[in-house]
């Protein structure tokens, strides 16, 4: 059946049909047939709600969102997991946050896994004593400038006060020690962990170093984790344009850059879900405006660079950016056209974390591929529908205990980066501050948007649509491929990359071309399965 002939309402029905009625009612609100009305109004989707037990979700936990995602990529903080061994073990080098210290002897703890390895004794009598000792031992061994402590499920239950331990050890050791109450059961997904990480970084690190930046056009890149070298590619492009990167949260990052990040003049947000909290708080406290950017896709990268140049408004920068874009796009175009000739008209589906399911649609569009369905594991409604619906979000009981910091303007250091007239002028030119339109307005009508997709729904979608490629993660990959459909991992990039920026676009086109046009899928049926009739006579006569 061709994609055009599929009745989308029927598909949705098919996805929900086998569910118990209570489950079906809930999933009905999380599976939406996209329709973009005038002024980019899209249907409401239910998101950021608790996972249905037993449905086989792909979601992880708060600890993963906090330690694994946000803090994991920072090379010179010793991150100690306070808990039994598993959490630390599974988050040990499994996300591909690359890092490149400036000098070979600079601190880099990325290859290490630190844990208090809680035993039954600590569950019974409490683990604070062991935690203190672990912090001391870490200090004695490594003398880092900062130590982070990450709580896991049992820590909250037995009542260990990691923040008190952090305060005590900070005083004792004279280095920055801070804790994260990121127990796995908090919130409903990784998302709560992002928020907790944002809060603690903002409270304990951002703003500690007031040294003014040396470069021109000072920018922070927020929500870019340098998977497969993405941030390296963006660093290359920024440098070429003459844009000074003060800090990246948190790909290829270090502690000092976080401490100094409030001196930048613009925050450019890549992954809205994981870092919008820091962006908002930095604006309130220090007066740094933020804009949404997207460096996934060649055209999007060009657009984002232009947006940054427009913000600063200097002709020198604007000209340089145009020059760089022209030079880079020439290289990209050649590959894009070649790959497009083999991929055009093919179809894709994307189900990834809280950001990439949107951004990667641009890359597929550039090589003529159509996105049939997309969704996030743990994004909120604003990531789907756009930030304009933020006032309508009700925080439910499962997420209510995630702390909201009360941030006010810093008396001495708050400095508006633009005058009201400048802001008005930019607004008139169509410049959007602190806005994100979300994924759905940019998807075609009658595509499917699915939040927290289950294993069952994934299998059904694949059976019905037979897309040419499905983008997801490691847990989905091999089941999908058993069905004869290639699966591109958009968390780990299947150990390739970078995919961001211009060089990244070229890598991505080539990888998708290789995958959707691979020989291997032709050989799945053995010759004797294709034509099983018997010709020989051996054994019959």
């Amino acid at each position: 059946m061709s994609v055009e002939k599929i009745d989308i309402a029927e598909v949705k029905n098919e996805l929900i049909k086998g569910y118990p009625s209570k489950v079906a009612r809930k999933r009905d609100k999380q599976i939406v047939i996209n329709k973009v009305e005038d002024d980019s109004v899209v249907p409401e989707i239910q998101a950021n709600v608790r996972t249905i037990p037993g449905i086989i979700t792909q979601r992880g936990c708060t600890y993963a969102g906090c330690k694994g995602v946000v803090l994991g990529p920072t090379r010179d903080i010793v991150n100690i997991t306070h808990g039994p061994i598993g959490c630390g073990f599974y988050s040990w080098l499994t996300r591909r946050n690359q890092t490149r210290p400036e000098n070979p002897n600079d601190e880099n703890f990325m290859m290490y896994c630190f844990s208090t390895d809680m035993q039954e004794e600590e569950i019974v009598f409490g683990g604070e004593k062991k935690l203190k000792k672990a912090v001391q031992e870490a200090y004695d061994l490594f003398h880092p400038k900062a130590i982070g402590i990450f709580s896991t499920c049992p820590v909250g239950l037995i009542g260990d006060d990691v923040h008190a331990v952090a305060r005590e050890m900070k005083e004792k050791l004279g280095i920055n020690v801070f804790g994260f109450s990121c127990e796995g059961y908090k919130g409903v997904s990784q998302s709560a962990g992002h928020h907790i990480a944002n809060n603690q970084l903002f409270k304990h690190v951002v703003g500690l170093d007031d040294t003014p930046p040396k470069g021109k056009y000072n920018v922070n890149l927020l929500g870019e984790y340098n998977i497969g070298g993405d941030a390296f590619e963006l660093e290359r492009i920024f440098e070429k344009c003459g844009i000074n990167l003060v800090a990246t949260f948190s790909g290829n990052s270090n502690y000092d850059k976080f401490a100094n990040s409030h001196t930048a003049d613009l925050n450019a947000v890549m992954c809205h879900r994981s870092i919008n909290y820091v962006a908002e708080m930095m604006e309130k406290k220090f007066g740094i405006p933020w804009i949404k950017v997207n460096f996934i896709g060649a055209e999007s990268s060009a657009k984002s660079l232009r947006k940054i140049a427009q913000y600063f408004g200097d002709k020198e920068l604007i000209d340089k950016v145009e020059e760089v874009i022209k030079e880079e796009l020439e290289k990209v175009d050649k590959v894009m056209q070649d790959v497009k000739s083999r991929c055009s008209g093919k179809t894709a589906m994307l189900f990834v974390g809280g950001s990439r399911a949107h951004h990667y649609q641009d890359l597929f569009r550039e090589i003529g591929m159509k996105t049939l369905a997309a969704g996030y594991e743990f994004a909120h409604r604003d990531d789907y529908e756009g930030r304009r619906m933020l006032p309508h979000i009700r925080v439910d009981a499962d997420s209510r205990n995630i702390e909201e910091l009360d941030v006010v303007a810093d008396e001495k250091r708050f400095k508006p980066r633009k005058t009201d007239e400048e802001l008005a002028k930019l607004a008139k030119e169509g410049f959007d501050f602190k806005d994100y339109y979300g994924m759905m307005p940019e998807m075609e009508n009658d595509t499917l948007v699915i939040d927290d997709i289950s294993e069952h729904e994934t299998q059904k979608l694949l059976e019905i649509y037979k897309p040419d490629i499905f983008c997801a993660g490691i847990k989905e990959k091999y089941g999908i491929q058993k069905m004869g459909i290639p699966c591109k991992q958009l968390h780990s990039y299947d150990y390739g990359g970078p995919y961001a920026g211009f060089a990244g676009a070229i890598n991505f086109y080539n990888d998708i071309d290789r995958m959707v046009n691979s020989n291997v899928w032709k050989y799945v049926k053995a010759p004797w399965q294709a034509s099983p009739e018997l010709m020989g006579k051996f054994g019959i006569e």
Partner: protein
Amino acid sequence: MLLRHTPKEIKEREALVVNPAKTCQPIGAMYAALGIHGCLPHSHGSQGCCSYHRSTLTRHYKEPIMAGTSSFTEGASVFGGQANLLEAIHNIFTIYNPDVIAVHTTCLSETIGDDIHQIANKAREEGKIPKGKFVIHASTPSYVGSHVTGFANMTKGMVEYFAEKNGTKLNQLNIIPGFVEPSDMREIKRIANAMGVKIVMFPDTSGVVDTPQTGKFNMFPKGGVTINELKSTGNSFATIALGQLASGPAAKLLDSKFKIQCEIHSLPIGLTATDRFIDSLRKLGGVSVPDSISDERGRLIDAIADMHQYLYGKKVALVGDPDQLVSLTEFLVTLDMKPVHIVTGTPGQKFESRIKEIVKDKVPNVNVKASGDMFLLHQWIKNEKVDLIMGNTYCKYIARDEDIPYIRFGFPIMDRIGHSYFPTVGYMGSLRLVEKILDALMDRKDRDSKEESFELVM
């Protein structure tokens, strides 16, 4: 240097584990549960654990790993996870229809003290478990033991829930293969078949985590021990448990519950351990060893004799799980190699004394530690260089820094294939290990030798 902060000087650590040589119980239980046909493992905790365990097994096998989770929220963590598990059981049977749900726990549900047995009974009373379907469980607190303990607990759970005795002794032998690869389980079945001994093996992940590409995805693949087979284990004439830690508890339970004689052996990795396994099969099964098996043994010894010069006296560092390390150490000693540093993360008093006993004449000053970590192993290596390192994927960082030939062995191996297809147990598996060891050592010799001493024939 990737691990540039690891100092040569060793300081005693009491609280901080750095680069663990173990992981936590539930992943072992999940792996064991996959060895039951038509079973969906279920993680009773918050969903992060389940995601991590599935991901790690998937990275190791390059195969889909299915499991459900109770997806605890903060509310459930305070008031108990009964409602979550009841809902999960109902949803799983309705949506995915497995024959068995094998529930394991995490540090979360263990700390709050959820009673799985009682919850499963409630599910049965409420009609949430369809007729002919099962919910079994094992307690797997992450703060006790390691992933090996979790495997042992779930395997024991299989006996607890399924094994029956109906008075008729069956002419079959139970084999508990331990926390080994599907390739190893296949090899153990092949050996038993060649010996003419009828066996029931549990768990059995061959055909589950090494499935063929057919263009179809089966959530419940062909492999796995069936429920009827598990039930019949109570009527078998004996049990062979391979691996003290992983398989001992289930074998002992069969013995205490149904008076089934059990022999607990080392994992049959290497010459002598395989000898003991084969001999045990022969005696218990009342069969003679066929020529085909004796020939395999002869070929292994032949290869060792042929290539002895490259093995003799070579120092080896080992890290992994106790059952594997005990057998591997014994094998290396058989090969006249010197295992000088040996670390497992899995706690247990017996490990260190057992290793010391195995290497006593060969390496009187062996460094061995249970509840050790890879940071310590690396420090030992800095103090006494080795010619070879064997361990899981995380060893590659030490191997690169110290420029040591390296063989991937154990769990997890996330950067190569082979372990799920080719065994390391039995004579054939041991031969493969010898080949791997020789390849690693001789590739290094080829790389390092001067041009004039670069050899064609070796």
